[in-house]
């Protein structure tokens, strides 16, 4: 029950992605700025991977975030971190971007299904 109480504080959606994805999701109203803390990161070609990693870790430690949305192509850059993240909260969802449409072959859930029936 104490765990459930902490769930109630988690009500933000964070996003890591290219400028168009972030702009769109902020238009949908998920953006939140609290002092120096933001719940989004715009990734472009110049963004170092260490910054993406640091932001992802920061989001996973933030107890106000319930969901992290991340572009699939950005997620590929920090795959190890994503694989190591096994907690229920925040939940991570890989989303398609303008230049990288949804690829079912890279979908983690469908991979699990294949594994289940492949055993």
């Amino acid at each position, binding site marked *: 029950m104490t765990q459930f109480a902490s769930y109630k504080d988690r*009500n933000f959606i964070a996003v890591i992605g290219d400028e168009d994805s972030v702009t*769109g*999701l902020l238009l949908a109203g*998920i953006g939140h700025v609290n002092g120096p803390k933001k719940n989004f990161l715009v990734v472009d070609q110049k963004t170092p991977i260490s910054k993406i990693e640091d932001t992802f870790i920061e989001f996973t430690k933030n107890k106000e975030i319930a969901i992290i949305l991340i572009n699939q192509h950005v997620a590929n850059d920090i795959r190890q971190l994503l694989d190591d993240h096994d907690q229920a909260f925040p939940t991570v969802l890989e989303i398609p971007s303008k230049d990288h449409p949804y690829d079912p072959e890279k979908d983690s859930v469908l991979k699990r299904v294949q594994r289940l029936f492949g055993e």
Partner: protein
Amino acid sequence: MEEICTKLDEALLEYLSLISKYQENWQQISKELEGAFMQLAHTKYTMGPGRLTQDQYDGRMQAATRILISQNLGVEEEEKHYNHQFSLINGHLENDENINESESSQSIDNSSILRRRNVKELETKTDNTNKTKKPQKKQIIRDPLHWFGLLVPPSLRDSQKHFKQGLVNMVNLLNIRNEILEKEAQYRILKQEKEKFMQELSKSKEPVNEEKNTQENVS
């Protein structure tokens, strides 16, 4: 044994239907995002370069769309890991409703005042409404559309609608994903039960077979 098998079949069927739901949901998300990106590109074209970038984001933004996590009851403790559900709460809508309600209450107040035509009462009531108005104004969250100008192209509004719908679908997808993971755990437990049962059956059959073999040898 039959009971376990029927349970296993049911779990598998539900699991497969959830997966097809999951795939359908992904198709919807892809469609929404495709439309959203197309409209965003159109906006960039009409507004000109550099008018729709991260530089225009409002540094004081507050989340209008939030998540509420609720826990499903009646699920076994072993599956606790995935037995939660997400739902979207729209701050904009709630605020709009509050404002509308306050406006309507004000109009009722005003009409009653007019009927009474009492000047003193009118003054006191307007004072009260002014007092209640102030804190409600603070609650209003700016529509992110206005970061990019007051008169934005309709394509940006369309893009916003697509992104909002896409976000709703994403939350639905996460709920389906949780259900899939829960069902998968259930399926694995049932499969293990079945295997145990089969092993016990084969063990109990083995001594009978051995006895038969010895009897045949003797004869």
